[in-house]
């Protein structure tokens, strides 16, 4: 087992005429929180979709946990140990919070149709283990009081946390979070930061897309910056913050000066 959990090599993806990702390379070490930032449209979510098998990259490859991910379907990627959340929350809206997390256990459990119909001791034991684990995870992210409410009735911040609990239920080695703090207030974001640190302490590596710079700078060990589908900087948060190209990408460089002039 090497120190590297995920390495990306030359990842390229085009959509028609749009170059979403060009030749992106990075490595994520086991146990770190790795930030992925960049202006809107920089290709962060596209990178997530390529990583989790929703899209096939045009070129390049991922090595995850010492084996390639090439050609795997999304459900196989999840089985290998990458779980994700979505930028625009995608919970199972008409199911309870608990059931959402229970569905996350699907990939680590085995009951078949026959097992479900006859409901033998093994299936019953597995069912109660699923339920217990789901409840533990709800408590872990702090929405256990809403276990029996429909996911769509949860507060926005709770929905984000529920999505994390559902992802954790698949026992991921890498947890990929797409803007988990979007729409959260300062208190909720602080709570989220503690949650992310706990998850890392408990042994899960995190890949974090986030626009909240305060959160990124305080929680990430290293940060990768994308702009127009290209990696423009990588390194410890404090160092990346000072990088001129990063500042230009975010503030628009000379354009900003012109705006100031008018």
């Amino acid at each position, binding site marked *: 087992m090497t120190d590297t959990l995920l390495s990306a090599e030359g990842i390229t993806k085009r959509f028609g005429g749009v170059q979403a990702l060009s030749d992106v390379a990075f490595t994520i070490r086991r146990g770190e929180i790795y930030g992925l930032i960049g202006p809107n449209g920089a290709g962060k979510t596209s990178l997530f979709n390529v990583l989790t098998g929703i899209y096939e990259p045009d070129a390049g490859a991922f090595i995850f946990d010492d084996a390639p991910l090439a050609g795997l379907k*999304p459900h196989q990627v*999840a*089985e290998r140990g990458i779980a*994700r959340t979505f930028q625009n929350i*995608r919970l199972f*809206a008409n*199911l309870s919070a608990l059931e959402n997390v229970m569905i996350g256990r*699907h990939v680590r459990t085995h009951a078949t149709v026959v097992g479900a119909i006859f409901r033998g001791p093994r299936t019953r034991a597995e069912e*109660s283990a699923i339920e217990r684990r789901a409840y533990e995870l709800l408590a872990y992210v702090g929405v256990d009081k809403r*276990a029996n409410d429909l996911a769509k009735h949860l507060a926005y911040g709770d929905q984000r946390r529920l999505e994390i609990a559902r992802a954790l239920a698949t026992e991921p080695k890498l947890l990929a979070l797409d803007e988990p703090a979007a729409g959260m207030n300062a208190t909720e974001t602080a709570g989220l930061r503690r949650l992310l640190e706990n998850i890392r302490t408990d042994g899960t590596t995190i890949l974090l897309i986030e626009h909240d710079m305060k959160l990124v700078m305080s929680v990430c060990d290293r940060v990768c910056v994308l702009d127009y589908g290209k990696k423009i900087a990588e390194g410890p948060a404090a160092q990346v913050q000072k990088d001129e190209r990063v500042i230009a990408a975010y503030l628009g460089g000379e354009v900003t000066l012109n705006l100031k002039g008018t």
Partner: protein
Amino acid sequence: MNALFDTRANPRLAWVGILVVAIALAALPFALAGIGTAWVRITNTAILYVFLALGLNIVVGFAGLLDLGYIAFYAVGAYVYALLASPHFNLHLPFWVILPIGAATACLFGVLLGTPTLKLRGDYLAIVTLGFGEIIRIFLNNLSQPVNITNGPQGITLIDPFQIGSFSFKTNETIAGLSFSGPIKYYYFLVLVLIAVIVVNLRLQNSRIGRAWEAIREDEVAARAMGINTRNVKLLAFAMGASFGGIAGGMFSAIQGFISPESFILVESINVLAMVVLGGMGNVWGVILGALLLSFMPEVLRYTVGPIQERVFGRMLLEPEVIRMLLFGFALVLMMLFRPAGILPSALRKRELESIRAAAP
């Protein structure tokens, strides 16, 4: 209602509840026979529709895949039974052999329909399944040449009734002073199968597989990202739904003694879908209620529309057949306006989590 049948939380009340329901179900055919023998037959047909609605509910209610050709699986089951137990091929296999064959054949057809439609959803899926239903019916209509397999539009007659040894489900019999007619015997058989089917449906819904179906219905992309193999799970939904249709078809064949492609027209598919939607998609009890209502209501109207008009106006203004469909459609529109999610909408299943509360300090 669930509290009434919860043998663990409240054993005494539950057993009393179960006993009352059992006695009511056992006595029902004799009460119906008192009104008129036709009503036992109508009830049997209604139970067959409950089977169909429950089977379709797996596909539409649980997995969220709109299927407008469901009656094709009913047809497959019915024809398998008819061909293996009639003078047509001079085969007379016993029903307990044929029903599983019918279910397996329908299951195969379910997978056949499912495979090419895996990437379709909503309207597109509805159109393909509609076409599939018609293809099956047209095949049945035309497979009389060059080799006569289905006997074409004439259908297949003299289909064997269920028979166990010398005990036939068709003949009248007097046991312990009670007269058991053919339909009454079938009724008891159907009710036993119905109980099994309901148990299977409830268990499926509350299982790893059932949750995977519901996940696909709610959000397919998220379901895949959570590690659910959506291809297999969807095919499973089609296969399970089709199997229920196949079993129901076999029983329909035996009870009727005669089938033809006319019994499996598009309107039948839509009728079964209406039962599922009206009762409450995804809710097993709602679907049962929807199927019973939509099967009984036309019959009740058939017998009441005429007499009521004569009582009120002194003569018959509208033919029962005409006004029956009018009222039926009107009732459906009202239902959808005031209870769009069905009579019993798919309810949130509260989990008690007693094991956890007991373990917590």
